[in-house]
């Protein structure tokens, strides 16, 4: 039976207020709560549901980044992934094309029937990796999935996609790449029994060099700035004043 590979990214927690480093080189991440990218949680949940429905035999989570990514992988294992792979890429940022190349290399080794990723990571909002890796692998892709139905016999996935103005349903042959949108599912919590089981699961550590992938930065970040501060609102004392200010100051009337 087929295997599912899920990519999970460690990002600044969704609920943390983002701060830019003083030198404007990047977002501040030291002493900041980091968690699994919410779209990756959804990707993992979908993989687990497919396995639980009997359409897959194993779910492998992979994360690319610094040593602390193992914490994110621990979460993945506690949620129910069977094993994990950590590609230790050091502290420098890894951009989508490099991530896609690493994932291709792992796919070639693991030979999964499905690669599921979040549609984007909430830190850099690239929304590129899934599409790139599908291109590199020459696999069909179902992006922005809000519903996934697998036909085990025919080896086909039916993916409902959230597109502008509605839903699009496509049918793709396996193996395939799927990227997940927000409404696909509600990820489960890590329960104590599963956290306990996760203790005996393995996280294999490899380097990009092991996969013969050279980390190249095609992008140079010039500057990171905070969005402009919103001006404080004003309380008007009468309807006349409101009309007056809409006319003369805002010039919308």
């Amino acid at each position, binding site marked *: 039976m087929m295997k599912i590979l899920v990519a999970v990214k460690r990002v600044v927690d*969704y609920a943390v207020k983002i701060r830019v480093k003083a030198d404007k080189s990047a977002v501040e991440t030291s002493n900041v*709560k980091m968690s699994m990218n919410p779209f990756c949680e959804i990707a993992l949940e979908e993989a687990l549901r497919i396995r639980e429905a009997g359409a897959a035999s194993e779910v492998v989570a992979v994360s690319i980044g610094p040593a602390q990514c193992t914490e994110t992988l621990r979460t993945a294992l*506690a949620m129910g992934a069977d094993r994990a792979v950590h590609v230790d890429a050091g502290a420098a940022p890894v951009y989508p094309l490099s991530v896609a190349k690493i994932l291709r290399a792992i796919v070639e080794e693991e030979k999964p029937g499905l690669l599921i990723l979040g549609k984007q990571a909430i830190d850099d909002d690239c929304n590129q990796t899934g599409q790139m890796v599908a291109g590199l692998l020459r696999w069909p892709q179902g992006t922005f999935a809000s519903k996934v139905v697998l036909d085990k016999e025919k080896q086909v996935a039916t993916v409902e996609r959230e597109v502008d103005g509605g839903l699009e349903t496509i049918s793709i042959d396996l193996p395939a790449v799927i990227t997940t949108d927000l409404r696909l599912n*509600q990820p489960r*919590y*890590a*329960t*104590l029994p599963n*956290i306990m089981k996760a203790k005996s699961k393995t996280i294999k550590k490899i380097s990009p060099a092991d996969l013969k992938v050279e980390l190249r930065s095609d992008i140079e970040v010039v500057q990171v700035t905070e969005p402009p501060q919103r001006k404080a609102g004003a309380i008007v004392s009468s309807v006349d004043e409101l009309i007056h200010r809409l006319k003369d100051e805002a010039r919308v009337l």
Partner: protein
Amino acid sequence: MAGIPLFQHRLFSSGIDTKRNTSFSTLNSDDILYFKDILDHKNVVQDEDRLVAANVDWMRKYKGSSQLLLLPKNSEDVAKILKYCNSRCLAVVPQGGNTGLVGGSVPVYDEVIINLSAMDKIVSLDKVNGILICEAGCILENLNSYVENEGFVMPLDLGAKGSCQIGGNVATNAGGLHFIRYGSLHANILGLEVILADGTTLDMLTTLRKDNTGYDLKHLFIGSEGTLGIITKVALLTPCKPSSRSIAFLACNDYICCQKLLAEAKQSLGEAISAFEFMDYHSVEMVLAYTEGVRNPLPASPYNFYVLIETTTSDELYDRTKLEAFLLHAMEMGLVSDGVIAQDLNQASSFWRIREGIPEGLLKAGAVYKYDLSLPIQVLYAIVEEMRARLGNTAKVVGYGHLGDGNLHLNISTTHYDDKILSEIEPFVYEWTAKVRGSISAEHGLGLMKADKIHYSKSAETVQVMTSIKKLFDPKGIMNPYKLLPHRLFQD
């Protein structure tokens, strides 16, 4: 708030039979003119809609008939208002966010409402010692966001944080969710500025940790529920913000397991525990039924009890490892039947939403009789079971609260307020509490609801001394009358 029944039929449901004190004057047009003279006109509110809101408490259980709401902008305004009211013998009720649960923050009759919400300035924050000075009308959540930005946290946190004001918190000695970690406001308040009934300003606004010069009067005002004076400024300790917070939502089969789990947690997690909350099945059921967007973290099967443990430390990995190890051990010991650990902040807040959503769920379910009891931990849940047996299927009895502090919130939910049910609950609940030497008010205060119940928890001699103190600070009795102490003590 949608879904809350109209309040008309719910008012005056707690058997209050106090008569208006005839020695108080009634408001006349000269009084209004005077207040308009000392305050901005817009801060002298006679608008009916605004008065309706200020006359009714959060639970829509108590309703006064005040004709005047004053919004002082600073301590001097408060002093002038009180001096005048005292000279005219006009009774007043100090009001903050009006989130109290015992009818303490709304007028009983026509008392003038002095609302502190326009006094919301932060005076200073000492970033070396973590000492905040602010005006009494600052909203707790705003203060917390402010100090968090500077690396500190407020030493108290409660469900009403988005509306309640620090002055009201101090005046009622509010406890809340982090009491187990940071202790009572008696331990965290360093100084107060208070205006007495006659307009005298008591400047006790020091920021010293140690100060043994005479009687420490500020403590009298902490928990005085506005009966001795109006707190206008507060100096309090803000602990350093812990960089890591871990939260687990657990299921226990019985109350014995909850107790043992608490003992074990104190032993193993010690100083890291920042909350230890428990909820019975019926409380959680209430939240799930009435709160949108809340889901049961342990849906597989129902459990009799749920416990929420929060630990906060300065090291995330250490925090997590320690909590995990403790919980796995507790599970092996059979104390915990199932549980989940929050993997991110969103999950953490969804666990908290369950615990914090209970009061709102109860409010939406219909009428609710609330009791806030301090009890010896061994018998803390027995009262819930006895009450449940006593009321049968006429009411839904739920128990939850701050187990780590021995504080039970006993709530009795019915379709409507009914004197027959009330007579089944009271005085039984008070007598039961007195019998085990508990307190009939752990953190909510006495307010109007329990003013004449104080003797269940305090001796006659103690109440007598309290009465003398009240008369000393407020000889005419204008400060928040009919509350905290039995009114009959002031009638002769």
